């Protein structure tokens, strides 16, 4: 399509401005983590490393970090198994209700987080009579993490086709050996990418978490939420926020590279 020079320039400027605006809030948080003024007015009053030092020695914060890692690891493990099984069954088989199953995988993330939260909270407490715990939180997180593993694995399986597996079977390997020695190695990077994304998704989740975690289970987002409105703790929250911005880049960049999908299968 022929666009006038003016249109092209206008489009370029609009894109640049909109994308740049996306970084403003993140920059504000990073700058504020070094801001010597507690009220965080703009522009910053001065430079200090005090908040970073205090954050590194905050016991509650470190405990929350540990809990978040444990929950994310367990949820990712469950999501890896369920997501892979679901992807293999949908990619390799045509059966009645196939569309329904693929919808079922997407549903926990397509429905608003509040719905997933209240539905699981209600199921645990009212219907099953199970008290909320670390375990109920893992069940909840795993449920919506399945979809990112599923997306990555099914995309890989589509690209691979079944030739290598057939060759393996023709050469006498049984189904399990073929899976273990052929299919799994071919899916390795897709599993790693899906796993990283599932980990990040669980690590960041707050909406469902508050409905499915016990009082004693303080994940990092819960800790942030609890301290957000305390003026004394606000500086440390800025530090945690900055650390999260920096840390989030790493797994995402790796996942993007591994899955070959720019959105990393999240959207």
């Amino acid at each position, binding site marked *: 399509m022929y666009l006038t020079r003016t249109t092209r320039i206008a489009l370029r400027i609009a894109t640049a401005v909109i994308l740049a605006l996306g970084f403003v809030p993140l920059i504000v948080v990073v700058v504020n983590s070094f801001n010597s003024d507690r009220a965080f007015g703009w522009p910053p009053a001065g430079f200090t490393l005090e908040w970073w030092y205090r954050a590194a020695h905050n016991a509650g914060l470190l405990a929350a970090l540990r809990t978040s890692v444990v929950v994310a690891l367990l949820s990712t493990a469950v999501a890896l198994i369920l997501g892979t099984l679901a992807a293999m069954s949908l990619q390799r*088989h045509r059966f009645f209700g196939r569309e329904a199953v693929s919808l079922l995988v997407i549903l926990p993330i397509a429905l608003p987080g509040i719905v997933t939260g209240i539905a699981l909270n209600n199921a645990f407490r009212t219907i099953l009579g199970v008290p909320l715990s670390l375990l109920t939180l893992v069940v909840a997180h795993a449920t919506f993490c399945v979809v990112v593993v599923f997306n990555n694995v099914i995309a890989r399986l589509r690209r691979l086709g079944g030739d290598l597996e057939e060759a393996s079977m023709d050469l*006498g390997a049984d189904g399990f050996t073929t899976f273990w020695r052929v299919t799994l190695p071919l899916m390795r990077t897709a599993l790693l990418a899906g796993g990283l994304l599932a980990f990040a998704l669980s690590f960041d989740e707050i909406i469902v978490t508050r409905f499915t975690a016990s009082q004693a289970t303080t994940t990092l987002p819960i800790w942030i939420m609890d301290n957000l409105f305390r003026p004394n703790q606000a500086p440390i929250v800025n530090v945690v926020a900055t650390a*999260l911005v920096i840390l989030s880049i790493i797994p995402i960049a790796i996942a993007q590279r591994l899955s070959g999908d720019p959105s990393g299968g999240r959207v």
Partner: protein
Amino acid sequence: MTGNVALPRDGLRRRLSARLTRSPRSRLALLLTAPLLWLGLAYLGALAALLVTALWTTNTFTGEIERVWTLDNLRIVVTDSVYRSVTLRTVGVAALVTVIDAVLAAPVAFFMAKVASPRWQPLLVAAILLPLWASYLVKAYAWRSMFGGGGLIDWAGAPFGIGSPGYGLTATVCTLAYLWFPYMVLPIFAGLERLPDSLLEASGDLGARPGRTLRTVVLPLAFPAVVAGSIFTFSLSLGDYVAVEIVGGTSQFLGNLVYDNIGAANNQPLAAAVGLVPVVVMIVYLFLARRAGALENL
């Protein structure tokens, strides 16, 4: 997969494997059982239980749930003016956020897919993804400090005599639009990338000016992608209550009512009934989206 040579080695594993090779049905059953049990029982079961709980009631004295069937909770949610206005506010804000994101995303996605050079494209995608993956709370919190008194917005607006509107609906709309923007750009970008350049050139060769090509060729073909993106922005806004807590001031969303009814009020049946509202809204939305052909774009 026919040439499964039977080796003279017996054992459970081999027999099982042979059976699985011969029977696609058993293979499928083995693969599908665990995910179906988890998602079908745990998730669909929980959704069904939500409906059932909404039909129960709470003893006003003990706070215990009584398994007595009643339509009271549903009636309250539908007729009480508080619930009605909160529903309208939540749906209205979700719709507004969706429109804002679509308007902002369209030029960006078009530029990325059709104008930017191949060298720039991955950089632009990265520029959208980085804020996407920064923590949700970090971003909501950032907007809180920007909207706060003496914050960035006050500072930037001062020369023009504009102050921050403070915490409230405006801040909520801005924050949500910011949070979900990437979920709108990426589907539209993907949709436009699939749209062959030759169609645009053909339209131009046949005499259409860019504006007309945009209206009659690009828009109709990109529309399903926009609707696909809108499912995310709408659903995510509809179910949000944390950003509302952080920047919303005193305004309440459906999610806040659900959360408060579970926490302070300890009225699980009423919370369940309120929680059904976003489910119904999303079912209607997904039904309309399917008619627009957007579900194939997800």
